[in-house]
């Protein structure tokens, strides 16, 4: 059986959870086994996971699971894997997934592949999973040989697909150990899609000349419904917050559309963004290396081009 840990954020599901269930469903289909899902803590309307292919949804609803402690989550998931007899465990490669994947692999002495970007194959009995390596500069195909296999799924790599209807949610009785972490404060960015799961990203770099000029980037992002990002030099000098830094030493992203304005495209930046499906580069320097990695290029002054693009998108949306 394939068991998907479907992550709820603040009690509700986001796209990453549906992607993980779709991935689990396709994996189960490939293996000819059932796909089930498990949710931890508060998770409103978890029956919706049935739509993406979970034949059953299990819930461990203890209040203490409303805060993330990888150690506690791991103990609960390990108990569930053993109780339900799961052979493949799937989760999202989110902050939460990353703090659990390795722990669970160590606890179950199981093979794991983090950040998979394609459904596994099982040719000739070799269970193989594909993932990006070298910060997106290459891919590796990795075989897992242990009895239990654990995989996390890269955001925006497997589109969620509805295949059935909602299912009932049943309580799963497993012990929840006490946490040794005391959470004091949680602040979430409301209304903004986090970069790792964003479909549309608007990014800018040193060509912006200063933090006071970012209004045009924010206006474009708002018109598109995109998340804003930036290059490393810009976050290093404090023009933009660290959590916006995409690239090899920042966040790796996989959006459908990446628009980069005033970013030259150093190899370290490309590493973090070249999994984007479509790349648009706006730069006044026609020799900027980023143009070689772009699908569409605009050679021009970003202070003219970006507002013009925002206006063109506004017109497009109005039909």
């Amino acid at each position, binding site marked *: 059986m394939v068991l998907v840990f479907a992550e709820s954020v603040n009690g509700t599901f986001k796209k990453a959870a549906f992607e993980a269930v779709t991935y689990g469903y396709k994996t189960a289909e490939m293996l000819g086994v059932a796909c089930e899902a498990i949710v931890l803590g508060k998770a409103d309307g978890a029956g919706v996971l049935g739509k993406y292919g979970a034949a059953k949804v299990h819930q461990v609803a203890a209040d203490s699971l409303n805060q993330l402690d990888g*150690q506690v989550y791991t103990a609960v998931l390990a108990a569930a894997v053993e109780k339900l007899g799961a052979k493949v465990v799937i989760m999202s490669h989110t902050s939460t997934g990353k703090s659990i994947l390795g722990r669970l*692999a160590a606890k179950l002495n199981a093979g794991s592949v*983090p950040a998979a970007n394609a459904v596994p194959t099982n040719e000739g009995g070799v269970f193989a999973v594909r993932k990006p390596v070298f910060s*997106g500069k290459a891919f590796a195909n990795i075989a897992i040989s242990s009895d239990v296999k654990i995989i996390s799924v890269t955001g925006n790599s497997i589109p969620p697909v509805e295949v059935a209807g909602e299912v009932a949610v049943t309580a799963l009785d497993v012990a929840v150990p006490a946490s040794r972490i005391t959470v004091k404060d949680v602040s979430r960015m409301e209304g903004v899609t986090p970069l790792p799961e964003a479909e549309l990203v608007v990014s800018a770099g040193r060509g912006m000349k200063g933090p006071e000029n970012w209004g045009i980037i924010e206006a474009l992002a708002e018109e598109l419904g995109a998340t804003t990002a930036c290059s490393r030099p810009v976050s290093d000098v404090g023009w933009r917050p660290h959590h916006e830094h995409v690239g090899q030493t920042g966040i790796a992203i996989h959006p459908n559309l990446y628009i980069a304005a005033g970013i030259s495209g150093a190899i370290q930046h490309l590493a973090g963004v070249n999994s984007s499906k479509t790349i648009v580069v706006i730069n006044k320097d026609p020799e900027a290396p980023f143009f070689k990695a772009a699908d569409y290029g605009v*050679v021009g002054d970003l202070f003219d081009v970006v507002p013009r693009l925002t206006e*063109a998108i506004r017109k497009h949306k109005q039909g």
Partner: protein
Amino acid sequence: MKLLVCVSKTPETTTKITFNGDQTALDTSGVQYIMNPYDEWYALVRALELKEALGTGTVTIINVGSAANDPVIRKGLAIGADEAVRIDKEGGSSLDVAQQIAAYAKENSFDIVFFGKETIDYNGSEVGAMTAELLDMPFVSFATKLEMSGNTATIMRDIEGGEETLEVATPFALSAAKGLAEQRIPNMKGIMMAKRKPLNVVAPVDTTNHTQVLTYDLPPAKSAVKLIDPENMDELVRLLSEEAKVI
């Protein structure tokens, strides 16, 4: 306080990645290696700052690999670590590396075990969580701030879609993200002193590998960029909508 910083060796960030003939291994000719940036810039430096603030304690760096890793380890000593340990084993899966580190850490009981948030080659983000599980320690992933008061740490960390402040008592493990510290460049005195600091080579423990890389491949080459007239953003929007189908 005894602090352990786990460091990995990775290809330098500007490395052009190519593979050997049958695509089963990295073509290492001409590849320059560095200490994984998250390990060096954030994990190691914050550990050194804690020790300096307390005025007591030790910072040990640990690496799993062959003697070819020694220059990277020496750099960690030059930046300021007191001693280094290299577990003499090349290759192996993330779980293998975690088991090697955990075996050493268990015998030498550390108060805080530091990791970088991920390596820039395998991008797994696994070894820290695995080691913490094997040591039965709480693991705080993606720490961006760390302050100690006695045995209690107050840590700010990135969580899904936001950030969180928490308290945890030693012993614990953490992974370091950008913001935890600022990169330090080793000075000449540090480089000279590093040569005299201990680098202990330890035999590995027996482990089983559950994963194996079958092949590597490179992304398909991009077709040539389509240049759009900067005066005509309607055309770009049309292409994004009709050709790329992304908006």
